């Protein structure tokens, strides 16, 4: 007997929660960009160097890539199955009145995040790994300058901010949904996890949204 409806969701929950954990680490690392300029440059470049050199981080980064790909691929498989399960469409459909917009459009939100990730990987990850970067005073690759320079452009900031809003709504449903998939059914703790999900989504979203704006209004290296 082929069983997929629950097991595939388990893959979504596990990869999703790992990505949630990663976002916390990523945000904490990025907060270094808010330090005073000279300090931020050295510390951020040192931190980037530390991450790229550590074997443990390397292993975790492969788990991260796998989680990203797995999350996206399983989302596609699940969506296909759901479309098939729907059969014919309603002529007049007002079902949207009884559920939240983001819970129904995780696929669209996820696609926005995926497009953002392509841009994000291309501009920083690829450049850092395969590009030739100038070195800072300590001899570390100067990723800090690249970051600060890219956030001098208004349109680039708009792309980032919109993507973070999409991420926020995605997390808001995803975090609690994962807990249910894992089997949390106790009313007290289900409520608690929903509250934690709200706080988590808000902190992550606002935290990430703050950094490009801070750089745009406070720093100018050009």
């Amino acid at each position: 007997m082929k069983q997929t409806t629950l097991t595939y969701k388990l893959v979504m929950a596990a990869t999703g929660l790992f990505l949630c954990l990663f976002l916390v680490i990523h945000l904490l690392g990025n907060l270094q960009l808010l330090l005073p300029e000279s300090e931020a440059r050295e510390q951020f470049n040192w931190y980037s160097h530390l991450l790229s050199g550590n074997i443990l981080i390397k292993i975790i980064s492969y788990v991260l890539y796998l989680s990203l790909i797995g999350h996206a691929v399983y989302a596609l498989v699940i969506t296909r199955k759901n479309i098939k399960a729907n059969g014919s469409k309603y002529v007049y459909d007002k079902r949207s009145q009884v559920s939240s917009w983001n819970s129904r459009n995780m696929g669209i939100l996820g696609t926005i995040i995926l497009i953002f990730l392509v841009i994000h990987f291309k501009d920083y990850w690829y450049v850092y790994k395969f590009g030739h970067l100038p070195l800072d005073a300590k001899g570390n690759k100067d990723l800090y300058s690249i970051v600060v320079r890219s956030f001098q452009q208004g349109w680039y900031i708009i792309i980032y901010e919109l993507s973070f809003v999409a991420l926020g709504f995605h997390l808001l449903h995803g975090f609690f949904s994962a807990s249910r998939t894992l089997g949390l059914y106790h009313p007290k703790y289900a409520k608690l996890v929903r509250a934690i999900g709200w706080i988590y989504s808000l902190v992550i979203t606002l935290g990430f949204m703050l950094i490009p704006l801070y750089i745009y209004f406070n720093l100018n290296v050009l």
Partner: protein
Amino acid sequence: MKLYLKVWRQEHRESKGNMVSYEVDGISEHMSFLEMLDLLNERLISKGERVIEFDHDCREGICGACGMMINGRAHGPLTGTTTCQLHMRSFKDGETVYIEPFRAAAFPVLRDLKIDRSAFDHIIQSGGYISASTGQAPESNSIPIAHEVTEAAFDAAACIGCGACVATCKNSSAALFTSAKISHLVLLPQGKLESADRVIKMVGQMDAEGFGHCSNTEACEVECPQEISVLHIGRMNYEYNKAMALRK
């Protein structure tokens, strides 16, 4: 009052259906939605036309036979109500009302608003029972069950299997229905014994019938006439994960 209806008419399972318009006047606001359809059907009979077929049985909100999409919502605009318990006072004079069958690949339309819900029966048959030998009822105090436990089990058992959860789900998932049955039995000592086997079989049957994945939009809980809690879906997931992890 007078209503402009647009009703889904379909000859049989394989044929293509379409929306047909009807004007119905002389409707009393005290009529139930089904009585309003009866009124229209009586007029169709006197004109020699084929009546609009729909499922119904008890007409007091406890059997789960009736169910249709009314103005794009399962069982109509109210929450926690069956179609038979929806009254015409919930509509405005001169309103256009769209009436369609519940739609899902696992619920094929038989004719007009009538659908085949045997997929639900198959899920029950796959594990929604306890393997007790029949005979005389045992002494009721021989198995102590706490009051809260019986109440919780009964809350889950209150599901009438109408299919509104599937109809309103954007994925046509039967998670609320299946989980209510699993929760009901796992809470009670008689049902606990076979819980691992049951959850695997029932989830397997749910998948085999072609229902979709649950993405926790929670629309089902809103439309459920019995207001079955979505937390049962959490419990089903818990029971399923546990059963799969401990399976030999």
